[in-house]
Protein backbone atom coordinates (compact mmCIF):
# COMPACT_ATOMS: atom_id res chain seq x y z
CA UNK A 1 0.00 0.00 0.00
CA UNK A 2 1.25 3.41 -0.93
CA UNK A 3 1.35 5.79 1.95
CA UNK A 4 1.17 9.55 1.71
CA UNK A 5 2.21 11.93 4.42
CA UNK A 6 -0.01 14.96 4.29
CA UNK A 7 0.86 17.67 6.75
CA UNK A 8 2.04 15.15 9.24
CA UNK A 9 -1.07 13.07 8.87
CA UNK A 10 -0.73 9.56 7.47
CA UNK A 11 -3.37 8.54 5.00
CA UNK A 12 -3.85 5.70 2.55
CA UNK A 13 -4.76 6.36 -1.04
CA UNK A 14 -8.43 6.72 -0.09
CA UNK A 15 -7.58 9.56 2.26
CA UNK A 16 -8.39 7.41 5.27
CA UNK A 17 -6.23 7.83 8.27
CA UNK A 18 -4.13 4.81 9.06
CA UNK A 19 -2.29 6.21 12.02
CA UNK A 20 -3.13 8.60 14.82
CA UNK A 21 -4.95 11.69 13.59
CA UNK A 22 -2.69 13.91 15.59
CA UNK A 23 -0.74 16.14 13.26
CA UNK A 24 2.95 16.69 13.91
CA UNK A 25 2.41 20.42 13.91
CA UNK A 26 -0.61 22.72 13.78
CA UNK A 27 0.99 25.87 12.47
CA UNK A 28 3.54 25.78 9.66
CA UNK A 29 6.59 27.97 9.17
CA UNK A 30 4.46 30.55 7.28
CA UNK A 31 2.16 30.93 10.24
CA UNK A 32 -0.66 29.10 8.46
CA UNK A 33 -2.82 26.45 10.08
CA UNK A 34 -3.70 22.99 8.80
CA UNK A 35 -6.62 24.33 6.75
CA UNK A 36 -4.58 27.25 5.47
CA UNK A 37 -6.04 29.91 7.76
CA UNK A 38 -4.06 32.45 9.70
CA UNK A 39 -4.31 32.23 13.48
CA UNK A 40 -6.86 35.06 13.72
CA UNK A 41 -9.14 33.92 10.90
CA UNK A 42 -12.52 32.27 11.24
CA UNK A 43 -13.73 29.56 8.89
CA UNK A 44 -16.00 30.62 6.00
CA UNK A 45 -19.60 30.92 7.14
CA UNK A 46 -22.81 30.89 5.12
CA UNK A 47 -26.30 31.39 6.51
CA UNK A 48 -29.77 31.05 5.09
CA UNK A 49 -32.95 32.07 6.84
CA UNK A 50 -36.50 30.82 6.58
CA UNK A 51 -35.56 27.28 5.54
CA UNK A 52 -38.36 25.58 7.51
CA UNK A 53 -41.85 26.61 6.50
CA UNK A 54 -43.62 25.17 9.52
CA UNK A 55 -41.37 26.83 12.08
CA UNK A 56 -41.94 30.42 13.14
CA UNK A 57 -38.30 31.14 12.46
CA UNK A 58 -35.41 29.08 11.13
CA UNK A 59 -31.85 29.30 9.94
CA UNK A 60 -29.43 26.93 8.25
CA UNK A 61 -25.79 27.66 8.86
CA UNK A 62 -22.58 26.24 7.47
CA UNK A 63 -19.37 27.15 9.19
CA UNK A 64 -16.40 25.35 7.78
CA UNK A 65 -17.52 21.74 7.86
CA UNK A 66 -20.15 22.36 10.52
CA UNK A 67 -23.72 22.17 9.34
CA UNK A 68 -26.37 23.31 11.77
CA UNK A 69 -30.08 23.98 11.43
CA UNK A 70 -31.96 26.01 14.02
CA UNK A 71 -35.72 26.33 14.40
CA UNK A 72 -37.73 28.62 16.64
CA UNK A 73 -41.33 28.01 17.67
CA UNK A 74 -43.33 30.49 19.63
CA UNK A 75 -44.04 32.37 21.69
CA UNK A 76 -46.62 29.69 22.32
CA UNK A 77 -48.66 28.24 25.13
CA UNK A 78 -46.55 26.40 27.69
CA UNK A 79 -47.55 23.02 29.04
CA UNK A 80 -47.21 21.74 31.69
CA UNK A 81 -48.48 24.82 33.48
CA UNK A 82 -46.13 24.46 36.41
CA UNK A 83 -43.25 25.50 34.15
CA UNK A 84 -44.96 28.78 33.28
CA UNK A 85 -43.40 31.93 34.61
CA UNK A 86 -46.06 34.45 35.54
CA UNK A 87 -44.14 37.53 34.46
CA UNK A 88 -41.91 36.41 31.62
CA UNK A 89 -41.55 34.03 28.73
CA UNK A 90 -39.51 30.86 29.14
CA UNK A 91 -36.81 30.31 26.55
CA UNK A 92 -36.15 26.62 26.04
CA UNK A 93 -33.07 25.77 24.05
CA UNK A 94 -32.37 22.27 22.82
CA UNK A 95 -29.00 21.43 21.35
CA UNK A 96 -28.82 18.07 19.67
CA UNK A 97 -26.36 16.28 17.45
CA UNK A 98 -27.72 14.05 14.74
CA UNK A 99 -26.64 10.43 15.06
CA UNK A 100 -24.80 10.78 11.75
CA UNK A 101 -23.11 14.09 12.53
CA UNK A 102 -19.75 12.50 13.35
CA UNK A 103 -17.88 9.45 12.08
CA UNK A 104 -18.88 7.20 14.95
CA UNK A 105 -22.61 7.15 15.34
CA UNK A 106 -23.78 9.12 18.36
CA UNK A 107 -26.38 7.46 20.47
CA UNK A 108 -29.51 9.53 19.84
CA UNK A 109 -31.24 11.33 22.66
CA UNK A 110 -30.09 13.71 25.34
CA UNK A 111 -26.68 13.07 26.81
CA UNK A 112 -24.76 14.68 29.62
CA UNK A 113 -22.93 16.83 27.09
CA UNK A 114 -25.95 17.97 25.07
CA UNK A 115 -27.96 18.73 28.21
CA UNK A 116 -25.16 20.94 29.46
CA UNK A 117 -24.76 22.72 26.13
CA UNK A 118 -28.52 23.26 25.91
CA UNK A 119 -28.51 24.88 29.32
CA UNK A 120 -25.61 27.26 28.79
CA UNK A 121 -26.63 28.13 25.21
CA UNK A 122 -30.16 28.97 26.31
CA UNK A 123 -28.74 31.21 28.99
CA UNK A 124 -26.61 32.92 26.35
CA UNK A 125 -29.82 34.48 24.99
CA UNK A 126 -31.21 35.60 28.34
CA UNK A 127 -29.84 39.14 28.28
CA UNK A 128 -31.09 39.88 24.76
CA UNK A 129 -34.56 38.34 24.54
CA UNK A 130 -37.28 40.65 25.88
CA UNK A 131 -38.82 38.00 28.08
CA UNK A 132 -41.34 40.27 29.76
CA UNK A 133 -43.32 40.71 26.53
CA UNK A 134 -44.95 37.29 26.64
CA UNK A 135 -45.68 36.28 30.24
CA UNK A 136 -46.51 32.63 30.79
CA UNK A 137 -45.57 31.58 27.27
CA UNK A 138 -42.60 29.66 25.92
CA UNK A 139 -40.17 30.19 23.06
CA UNK A 140 -38.69 26.91 21.89
CA UNK A 141 -35.33 26.98 20.16
CA UNK A 142 -34.10 23.78 18.54
CA UNK A 143 -30.55 23.56 17.26
CA UNK A 144 -29.75 20.40 15.33
CA UNK A 145 -26.18 19.65 14.36
CA UNK A 146 -26.19 17.77 11.06
CA UNK A 147 -22.45 17.63 10.58
CA UNK A 148 -19.94 18.33 13.30
CA UNK A 149 -16.42 19.63 12.91
CA UNK A 150 -15.57 21.29 16.23
CA UNK A 151 -17.27 24.38 17.54
CA UNK A 152 -20.81 23.12 17.05
CA UNK A 153 -22.19 24.90 20.09
CA UNK A 154 -20.96 28.24 18.79
CA UNK A 155 -22.31 27.47 15.33
CA UNK A 156 -25.66 26.52 16.88
CA UNK A 157 -25.83 29.81 18.79
CA UNK A 158 -25.10 31.80 15.64
CA UNK A 159 -27.86 29.94 13.79
CA UNK A 160 -30.30 30.29 16.69
CA UNK A 161 -29.79 34.06 16.80
CA UNK A 162 -30.94 34.42 13.20
CA UNK A 163 -33.79 31.96 13.73
CA UNK A 164 -34.99 34.07 16.68
CA UNK A 165 -34.80 37.24 14.59
CA UNK A 166 -36.66 35.44 11.78
CA UNK A 167 -39.41 34.45 14.21
CA UNK A 168 -39.97 38.10 15.10
CA UNK A 169 -38.88 37.68 18.70
CA UNK A 170 -38.08 41.05 20.28
CA UNK A 171 -34.38 41.15 21.09
CA UNK A 172 -32.07 43.89 22.31
CA UNK A 173 -29.47 42.74 19.85
CA UNK A 174 -27.92 39.75 18.18
CA UNK A 175 -25.69 37.17 19.81
CA UNK A 176 -22.58 35.81 18.14
CA UNK A 177 -20.41 32.98 19.34
CA UNK A 178 -16.90 31.94 18.45
CA UNK A 179 -14.23 29.79 20.01
CA UNK A 180 -10.58 30.52 20.61
CA UNK A 181 -7.97 27.99 21.61
CA UNK A 182 -4.31 27.20 21.97
CA UNK A 183 -2.28 24.90 19.74
CA UNK A 184 1.50 24.64 19.54
CA UNK A 185 1.62 27.27 22.27
CA UNK A 186 -0.12 29.81 20.05
CA UNK A 187 -3.62 31.24 20.35
CA UNK A 188 -5.84 30.45 17.36
CA UNK A 189 -9.34 31.62 16.53
CA UNK A 190 -12.21 29.26 15.68
CA UNK A 191 -10.67 25.83 16.20
CA UNK A 192 -11.14 23.11 13.62
CA UNK A 193 -11.41 19.46 14.51
CA UNK A 194 -7.75 18.42 14.89
CA UNK A 195 -7.00 21.62 16.79
CA UNK A 196 -9.95 20.97 19.03
CA UNK A 197 -9.08 17.33 19.61
CA UNK A 198 -5.36 17.68 20.19
CA UNK A 199 -4.99 21.33 21.15
CA UNK A 200 -4.03 22.63 24.58
CA UNK A 201 -7.11 24.76 25.22
CA UNK A 202 -10.53 25.54 23.86
CA UNK A 203 -12.55 28.56 24.96
CA UNK A 204 -15.99 29.02 23.39
CA UNK A 205 -17.47 32.47 23.96
CA UNK A 206 -20.80 34.05 23.06
CA UNK A 207 -21.34 37.76 23.28
CA UNK A 208 -23.80 40.51 22.45
CA UNK A 209 -23.05 43.35 20.08
CA UNK A 210 -21.99 45.47 23.04
CA UNK A 211 -19.37 42.91 23.92
CA UNK A 212 -21.20 41.59 26.94
CA UNK A 213 -20.25 37.97 27.41
CA UNK A 214 -23.21 35.63 27.63
CA UNK A 215 -21.44 32.30 27.42
CA UNK A 216 -17.96 31.33 28.44
CA UNK A 217 -16.61 27.84 28.87
CA UNK A 218 -13.12 26.49 28.89
CA UNK A 219 -11.34 23.25 28.36
CA UNK A 220 -7.58 23.05 28.95
CA UNK A 221 -5.22 25.64 30.31
CA UNK A 222 -4.43 29.24 29.51
CA UNK A 223 -2.30 31.71 31.42
CA UNK A 224 -3.87 34.95 32.58
CA UNK A 225 -2.16 36.87 29.76
CA UNK A 226 -3.22 34.32 27.20
CA UNK A 227 -6.78 34.47 28.46
CA UNK A 228 -6.91 38.24 28.05
CA UNK A 229 -5.40 38.02 24.57
CA UNK A 230 -7.85 35.23 23.73
CA UNK A 231 -10.81 37.38 24.72
CA UNK A 232 -9.56 40.14 22.46
CA UNK A 233 -9.26 37.70 19.57
CA UNK A 234 -12.68 36.25 20.14
CA UNK A 235 -14.20 39.74 20.22
CA UNK A 236 -12.78 40.34 16.75
CA UNK A 237 -14.10 36.99 15.58
CA UNK A 238 -17.56 37.77 16.90
CA UNK A 239 -17.52 41.17 15.23
CA UNK A 240 -16.93 39.45 11.91
CA UNK A 241 -19.83 37.11 12.62
CA UNK A 242 -22.11 40.04 13.53
CA UNK A 243 -21.29 41.58 10.17
CA UNK A 244 -22.15 38.32 8.38
CA UNK A 245 -25.40 38.04 10.32
CA UNK A 246 -26.29 41.62 9.52
CA UNK A 247 -25.66 41.05 5.82
CA UNK A 248 -27.77 37.90 5.84
CA UNK A 249 -30.66 39.72 7.51
CA UNK A 250 -30.53 42.83 5.34
CA UNK A 251 -30.16 41.00 2.03
CA UNK A 252 -33.08 38.68 2.65
CA UNK A 253 -35.64 41.14 1.32
CA UNK A 254 -33.67 42.55 -1.57
CA UNK A 255 -31.87 45.84 -1.42
CA UNK A 256 -32.67 48.45 1.16
CA UNK A 257 -34.02 50.82 -1.47
CA UNK A 258 -37.25 49.12 -2.45
CA UNK A 259 -38.49 49.00 1.07
CA UNK A 260 -41.31 50.89 2.62
CA UNK A 261 -42.69 50.66 6.10
CA UNK A 262 -46.03 49.03 6.53
CA UNK A 263 -48.64 51.62 5.83
CA UNK A 264 -51.65 52.23 7.96
CA UNK A 265 -50.37 50.81 11.21
CA UNK A 266 -50.52 54.27 12.70
CA UNK A 267 -52.41 57.51 12.17
CA UNK A 268 -55.59 56.15 10.72
CA UNK A 269 -58.98 57.71 11.06
CA UNK A 270 -62.25 55.83 11.25
CA UNK A 271 -63.94 55.66 7.92
CA UNK A 272 -64.78 52.03 7.45
CA UNK A 273 -66.64 50.63 10.39
CA UNK A 274 -64.49 47.68 11.42
CA UNK A 275 -61.01 47.72 10.12
CA UNK A 276 -59.92 51.26 10.69
CA UNK A 277 -60.82 51.38 14.31
CA UNK A 278 -58.44 48.56 14.85
CA UNK A 279 -55.43 50.33 13.56
CA UNK A 280 -56.32 53.59 15.20
CA UNK A 281 -56.51 51.99 18.55
CA UNK A 282 -53.01 50.67 18.32
CA UNK A 283 -51.66 54.09 19.07
CA UNK A 284 -52.27 54.31 22.82
CA UNK A 285 -50.87 50.87 23.47
CA UNK A 286 -47.72 51.82 21.66
CA UNK A 287 -47.16 54.70 24.00
CA UNK A 288 -47.25 52.32 26.87
CA UNK A 289 -44.69 50.19 25.15
CA UNK A 290 -42.27 53.06 24.96
CA UNK A 291 -42.12 53.54 28.68
CA UNK A 292 -41.93 49.82 29.19
CA UNK A 293 -38.96 49.35 26.96
CA UNK A 294 -37.14 52.23 28.58
CA UNK A 295 -37.32 50.57 31.95
CA UNK A 296 -36.42 47.24 30.59
CA UNK A 297 -33.32 48.58 28.98
CA UNK A 298 -31.97 49.27 32.41
CA UNK A 299 -33.01 45.91 33.76
CA UNK A 300 -31.09 44.04 31.17
CA UNK A 301 -28.12 46.30 31.52
CA UNK A 302 -27.82 45.05 35.04
CA UNK A 303 -27.74 41.49 33.92
CA UNK A 304 -25.03 42.47 31.47
CA UNK A 305 -23.03 43.80 34.36
CA UNK A 306 -23.58 40.56 36.15
CA UNK A 307 -22.08 38.69 33.28
CA UNK A 308 -19.07 40.89 33.34
CA UNK A 309 -18.68 40.15 37.02
CA UNK A 310 -18.99 36.49 36.28
CA UNK A 311 -16.17 36.78 33.85
CA UNK A 312 -14.12 38.59 36.42
CA UNK A 313 -14.83 35.80 38.91
CA UNK A 314 -13.85 33.28 36.36
CA UNK A 315 -10.68 35.20 35.76
CA UNK A 316 -9.78 35.12 39.41
CA UNK A 317 -10.56 31.51 39.66
CA UNK A 318 -8.18 30.82 36.86
CA UNK A 319 -5.43 32.80 38.49
CA UNK A 320 -5.75 30.90 41.72
CA UNK A 321 -5.32 27.77 39.70
CA UNK A 322 -8.63 26.16 40.58
CA UNK A 323 -9.62 25.80 36.98
CA UNK A 324 -9.65 22.09 36.95
CA UNK A 325 -13.29 21.93 37.87
CA UNK A 326 -14.01 24.15 34.93
CA UNK A 327 -12.90 21.53 32.53
CA UNK A 328 -16.22 21.34 30.86
CA UNK A 329 -14.92 19.19 28.12
CA UNK A 330 -15.55 20.87 24.84
CA UNK A 331 -14.11 18.48 22.39
CA UNK A 332 -17.07 17.41 20.44
CA UNK A 333 -15.89 14.07 19.33
CA UNK A 334 -13.90 12.99 22.32
CA UNK A 335 -16.87 13.66 24.45
CA UNK A 336 -19.34 11.81 22.37
CA UNK A 337 -17.12 8.83 22.30
CA UNK A 338 -16.81 8.93 26.04
CA UNK A 339 -20.49 9.42 26.39
CA UNK A 340 -21.38 6.66 24.03
CA UNK A 341 -19.04 4.21 25.63
CA UNK A 342 -20.27 5.18 29.08
CA UNK A 343 -23.80 4.50 28.10
CA UNK A 344 -22.90 1.30 26.38
CA UNK A 345 -21.27 0.06 29.55
CA UNK A 346 -24.30 1.07 31.53
CA UNK A 347 -26.55 -0.73 29.11
CA UNK A 348 -24.52 -3.89 29.40
CA UNK A 349 -24.62 -3.71 33.14
CA UNK A 350 -28.35 -3.34 33.04
CA UNK A 351 -28.68 -6.39 30.91
CA UNK A 352 -26.61 -8.41 33.30
Amino acid at each position, binding site marked *: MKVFAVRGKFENKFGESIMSDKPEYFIDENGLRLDGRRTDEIRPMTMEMGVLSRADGSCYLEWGNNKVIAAVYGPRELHPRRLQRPSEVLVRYRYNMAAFSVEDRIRPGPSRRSTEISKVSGEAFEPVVMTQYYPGAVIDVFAEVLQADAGTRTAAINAATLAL*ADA*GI*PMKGLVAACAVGKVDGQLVLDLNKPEDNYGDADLPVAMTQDGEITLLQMDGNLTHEEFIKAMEMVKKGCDQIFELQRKTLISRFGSEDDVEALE*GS*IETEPEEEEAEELSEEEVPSEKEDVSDTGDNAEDVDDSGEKFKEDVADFDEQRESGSDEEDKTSDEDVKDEEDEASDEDVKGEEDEQ
Partner: protein
Amino acid sequence: MDHNIVIPGQMLSEDVKSAGHGTYVKNDKVYSLYYGVANLKDRTYVVPFSGKYIPSRKDYLIGVVIQLTSSNWIFDIRSPYDGLLHVSEYPKRVESSGMKRIMDIGDCAILRIKDVSKSMRTDVSMRERGLRPLKDGRLIEILPTKVPRVIGHNGSMVSMLKKESNCDMFVGQNGRIWIQGKDHEMDRLTEAIDMIEREAHTSGLTEKVQQFMNNDPVVEDDIVSGSDESVDQGSDASSEDNDDTIPEETCRKIDALLDDAEDA
Protein backbone atom coordinates in the same frame (compact mmCIF):
# COMPACT_ATOMS: atom_id res chain seq x y z
CA MET B 1 -34.62 57.49 3.53
CA ASP B 2 -37.46 57.16 6.02
CA HIS B 3 -37.98 53.41 5.77
CA ASN B 4 -35.20 50.92 6.32
CA ILE B 5 -34.80 47.25 6.99
CA VAL B 6 -33.32 47.07 10.46
CA ILE B 7 -31.99 44.29 12.66
CA PRO B 8 -32.29 43.84 16.42
CA GLY B 9 -29.90 46.10 18.28
CA GLN B 10 -29.44 48.55 15.42
CA MET B 11 -29.21 52.17 16.48
CA LEU B 12 -32.10 54.13 15.01
CA SER B 13 -32.06 57.58 16.47
CA GLU B 14 -30.65 59.77 19.20
CA ASP B 15 -33.99 61.38 19.91
CA VAL B 16 -35.27 59.44 22.90
CA LYS B 17 -38.67 61.14 22.78
CA SER B 18 -39.40 59.74 19.33
CA ALA B 19 -39.03 56.13 20.47
CA GLY B 20 -42.13 54.14 19.55
CA HIS B 21 -43.26 50.56 19.19
CA GLY B 22 -40.56 47.94 18.62
CA THR B 23 -37.72 50.04 20.00
CA TYR B 24 -35.87 50.39 23.27
CA VAL B 25 -33.83 53.16 24.78
CA LYS B 26 -30.36 52.73 26.16
CA ASN B 27 -27.80 55.40 26.97
CA ASP B 28 -29.98 58.11 25.40
CA LYS B 29 -30.16 56.31 22.08
CA VAL B 30 -33.00 54.43 20.42
CA TYR B 31 -32.38 50.89 19.21
CA SER B 32 -34.51 48.39 17.30
CA LEU B 33 -36.01 45.38 19.04
CA TYR B 34 -37.07 43.60 15.90
CA TYR B 35 -35.93 42.40 12.53
CA GLY B 36 -38.27 44.47 10.43
CA VAL B 37 -38.92 47.78 8.76
CA ALA B 38 -38.21 50.98 10.67
CA ASN B 39 -40.01 54.24 10.19
CA LEU B 40 -37.76 57.14 11.03
CA LYS B 41 -40.08 60.04 10.20
CA ASP B 42 -41.34 62.05 13.17
CA ARG B 43 -41.82 58.94 15.35
CA THR B 44 -39.36 56.08 15.39
CA TYR B 45 -41.01 52.68 15.34
CA VAL B 46 -40.26 49.25 13.95
CA VAL B 47 -42.75 46.91 12.32
CA PRO B 48 -41.41 43.36 12.57
CA PHE B 49 -41.43 41.05 9.53
CA SER B 50 -42.99 38.24 11.51
CA GLY B 51 -44.24 37.39 14.95
CA LYS B 52 -47.18 36.01 16.82
CA TYR B 53 -50.33 37.97 17.52
CA ILE B 54 -50.37 39.32 21.06
CA PRO B 55 -53.86 40.24 22.25
CA SER B 56 -54.48 43.84 23.16
CA ARG B 57 -57.64 45.52 24.37
CA LYS B 58 -60.34 46.50 21.87
CA ASP B 59 -58.81 44.50 19.01
CA TYR B 60 -61.21 42.84 16.61
CA LEU B 61 -60.30 39.29 15.72
CA ILE B 62 -61.55 36.00 14.39
CA GLY B 63 -61.44 33.08 16.79
CA VAL B 64 -62.04 29.36 16.42
CA VAL B 65 -63.74 27.52 19.26
CA ILE B 66 -61.43 24.90 20.73
CA GLN B 67 -63.27 24.04 23.90
CA LEU B 68 -66.57 24.53 25.71
CA THR B 69 -66.90 24.80 29.45
CA SER B 70 -70.11 25.22 31.41
CA SER B 71 -70.00 28.98 31.07
CA ASN B 72 -67.26 29.80 28.56
CA TRP B 73 -66.36 29.28 24.97
CA ILE B 74 -62.61 29.02 24.65
CA PHE B 75 -61.25 30.38 21.38
CA ASP B 76 -58.00 29.84 19.60
CA ILE B 77 -56.94 33.34 18.59
CA ARG B 78 -53.58 32.45 16.95
CA SER B 79 -51.65 33.68 19.93
CA PRO B 80 -49.89 32.07 22.88
CA TYR B 81 -53.00 32.87 24.90
CA ASP B 82 -56.58 31.63 24.48
CA GLY B 83 -59.59 33.90 24.26
CA LEU B 84 -62.37 33.34 26.81
CA LEU B 85 -65.94 34.21 25.85
CA HIS B 86 -68.26 34.09 28.84
CA VAL B 87 -71.90 33.29 28.05
CA SER B 88 -72.88 36.67 29.45
CA GLU B 89 -70.80 38.28 26.68
CA TYR B 90 -72.97 36.64 24.02
CA PRO B 91 -75.72 39.05 22.89
CA LYS B 92 -78.56 36.68 23.80
CA ARG B 93 -79.21 34.76 26.98
CA VAL B 94 -77.81 31.27 26.61
CA GLU B 95 -78.34 28.26 28.81
CA SER B 96 -75.31 26.11 29.49
CA SER B 97 -76.94 23.27 27.58
CA GLY B 98 -77.63 25.48 24.57
CA MET B 99 -74.06 26.71 24.08
CA LYS B 100 -73.23 23.91 21.73
CA ARG B 101 -76.06 24.87 19.38
CA ILE B 102 -74.76 28.42 19.02
CA MET B 103 -71.07 27.66 18.60
CA ASP B 104 -69.46 24.27 18.78
CA ILE B 105 -65.83 23.24 18.61
CA GLY B 106 -64.37 24.25 15.25
CA ASP B 107 -66.82 27.10 14.67
CA CYS B 108 -65.53 30.60 13.97
CA ALA B 109 -66.69 33.94 15.22
CA ILE B 110 -65.80 37.60 14.95
CA LEU B 111 -64.87 38.78 18.44
CA ARG B 112 -63.63 41.85 20.18
CA ILE B 113 -61.20 41.79 23.06
CA LYS B 114 -62.83 43.13 26.19
CA ASP B 115 -59.88 42.97 28.48
CA VAL B 116 -56.38 41.54 28.76
CA SER B 117 -55.10 40.96 32.27
CA LYS B 118 -51.52 41.29 33.36
CA SER B 119 -51.08 37.55 33.16
CA MET B 120 -52.50 37.74 29.60
CA ARG B 121 -55.86 36.21 30.45
CA THR B 122 -57.84 37.40 27.45
CA ASP B 123 -61.58 38.04 27.77
CA VAL B 124 -63.48 38.53 24.55
CA SER B 125 -66.96 39.80 23.90
CA MET B 126 -69.62 39.54 21.21
CA ARG B 127 -71.91 42.21 22.61
CA GLU B 128 -71.41 44.67 19.84
CA ARG B 129 -72.77 45.30 16.39
CA GLY B 130 -71.07 43.27 13.69
CA LEU B 131 -69.73 40.58 16.03
CA ARG B 132 -71.22 37.23 15.08
CA PRO B 133 -70.53 33.57 14.53
CA LEU B 134 -69.31 32.86 10.99
CA LYS B 135 -71.29 30.14 9.28
CA ASP B 136 -70.09 30.31 5.67
CA GLY B 137 -67.42 31.91 3.51
CA ARG B 138 -63.71 31.25 3.72
CA LEU B 139 -61.06 31.86 6.31
CA ILE B 140 -57.59 32.94 5.21
CA GLU B 141 -54.63 33.13 7.56
CA ILE B 142 -51.81 35.60 7.09
CA LEU B 143 -49.00 36.76 9.34
CA PRO B 144 -50.47 39.09 11.98
CA THR B 145 -47.67 41.56 11.28
CA LYS B 146 -48.95 42.01 7.71
CA VAL B 147 -52.48 42.92 8.82
CA PRO B 148 -51.92 46.72 8.71
CA ARG B 149 -50.85 46.31 5.10
CA VAL B 150 -54.04 44.43 4.18
CA ILE B 151 -56.08 47.16 5.85
CA GLY B 152 -54.06 50.00 4.33
CA HIS B 153 -54.13 53.72 5.09
CA ASN B 154 -57.57 54.52 6.48
CA GLY B 155 -58.71 51.13 5.27
CA SER B 156 -57.91 52.00 1.67
CA MET B 157 -56.75 48.49 0.83
CA VAL B 158 -59.73 46.75 2.39
CA SER B 159 -62.28 48.97 0.70
CA MET B 160 -60.52 48.62 -2.63
CA LEU B 161 -60.42 44.83 -2.29
CA LYS B 162 -64.11 44.71 -1.34
CA LYS B 163 -65.06 46.88 -4.30
CA GLU B 164 -62.94 45.08 -6.86
CA SER B 165 -63.82 41.56 -5.78
CA ASN B 166 -67.50 42.04 -4.86
CA CYS B 167 -66.75 39.97 -1.78
CA ASP B 168 -67.67 40.63 1.80
CA MET B 169 -64.53 40.77 3.90
CA PHE B 170 -63.43 41.11 7.49
CA VAL B 171 -59.82 41.44 8.62
CA GLY B 172 -59.08 40.37 12.17
CA GLN B 173 -56.04 41.81 13.92
CA ASN B 174 -54.85 38.28 14.62
CA GLY B 175 -54.21 37.65 10.93
CA ARG B 176 -57.39 35.75 10.13
CA ILE B 177 -59.36 37.11 7.24
CA TRP B 178 -62.92 36.08 6.50
CA ILE B 179 -64.23 36.48 2.97
CA GLN B 180 -67.54 35.64 1.38
CA GLY B 181 -68.69 35.87 -2.20
CA LYS B 182 -68.80 33.87 -5.41
CA ASP B 183 -66.21 31.14 -5.61
CA HIS B 184 -64.15 32.60 -8.44
CA GLU B 185 -64.25 36.02 -6.82
CA MET B 186 -63.02 34.55 -3.57
CA ASP B 187 -60.21 32.77 -5.42
CA ARG B 188 -59.17 36.05 -6.92
CA LEU B 189 -59.30 37.84 -3.59
CA THR B 190 -57.29 35.07 -1.95
CA GLU B 191 -54.61 35.50 -4.59
CA ALA B 192 -54.57 39.24 -4.01
CA ILE B 193 -54.19 38.75 -0.25
CA ASP B 194 -51.36 36.29 -0.83
CA MET B 195 -49.70 38.90 -2.98
CA ILE B 196 -50.06 41.55 -0.27
CA GLU B 197 -48.52 39.25 2.30
CA ARG B 198 -45.65 38.34 0.01
CA GLU B 199 -44.87 41.92 -0.96
CA ALA B 200 -45.81 43.64 2.27
CA HIS B 201 -42.42 45.32 2.55
CA THR B 202 -42.60 47.04 -0.85
CA SER B 203 -44.06 50.44 -1.67
CA GLY B 204 -46.99 51.35 -3.87
CA LEU B 205 -48.74 48.14 -2.93
CA THR B 206 -52.33 49.39 -3.18
CA GLU B 207 -51.84 50.36 -6.82
CA LYS B 208 -50.12 47.07 -7.60
CA VAL B 209 -52.95 45.09 -6.06
CA GLN B 210 -55.56 47.21 -7.80
CA GLN B 211 -53.87 46.55 -11.11
CA PHE B 212 -53.78 42.87 -10.29
CA MET B 213 -57.49 42.86 -9.48
CA ASN B 214 -58.39 44.86 -12.59
CA ASN B 215 -56.21 43.43 -15.30
CA ASP B 216 -55.78 39.74 -15.06
CA PRO B 217 -59.19 38.27 -14.33
CA VAL B 218 -60.24 37.67 -17.94
CA VAL B 219 -56.95 36.10 -18.96
CA GLU B 220 -56.39 34.09 -15.84
CA ASP B 221 -59.92 32.83 -15.47
CA ASP B 222 -59.78 31.31 -18.93
CA ILE B 223 -56.33 29.85 -18.94
CA VAL B 224 -54.94 29.34 -15.50
CA SER B 225 -57.62 28.97 -12.96
CA GLY B 226 -59.85 26.59 -14.88
CA SER B 227 -58.48 23.58 -13.10
CA ASP B 228 -57.70 25.50 -9.94
CA GLU B 229 -61.24 26.62 -9.62
CA SER B 230 -62.76 23.20 -9.74
CA VAL B 231 -60.37 22.01 -7.09
CA ASP B 232 -61.06 25.03 -4.95
CA GLN B 233 -64.77 24.67 -5.30
CA GLY B 234 -64.52 21.10 -4.24
CA SER B 235 -62.56 21.89 -1.15
CA ASP B 236 -64.73 24.84 -0.40
CA ALA B 237 -67.91 22.86 -0.72
CA SER B 238 -66.60 20.20 1.59
CA SER B 239 -65.52 22.76 4.15
CA GLU B 240 -68.99 24.26 4.08
CA ASP B 241 -70.44 20.83 4.53
CA ASN B 242 -68.23 20.47 7.54
CA ASP B 243 -69.79 23.51 9.09
CA ASP B 244 -73.32 22.28 8.65
CA THR B 245 -73.45 18.55 9.00
CA ILE B 246 -70.37 16.95 10.46
CA PRO B 247 -69.66 18.99 13.58
CA GLU B 248 -71.88 17.27 16.09
CA GLU B 249 -70.67 13.80 15.42
CA THR B 250 -67.03 14.78 15.03
CA CYS B 251 -67.13 16.96 18.05
CA ARG B 252 -68.55 14.22 20.17
CA LYS B 253 -65.67 12.03 19.07
CA ILE B 254 -63.16 14.77 19.76
CA ASP B 255 -64.74 15.37 23.13
CA ALA B 256 -64.42 11.71 23.95
CA LEU B 257 -60.78 11.73 22.85
CA LEU B 258 -60.06 14.85 24.88
CA ASP B 259 -61.69 13.36 27.93
CA ASP B 260 -59.59 10.26 27.55
CA ALA B 261 -56.46 12.33 27.18
CA GLU B 262 -57.28 14.32 30.28
CA ASP B 263 -58.01 11.21 32.29
CA ALA B 264 -54.73 9.68 31.20
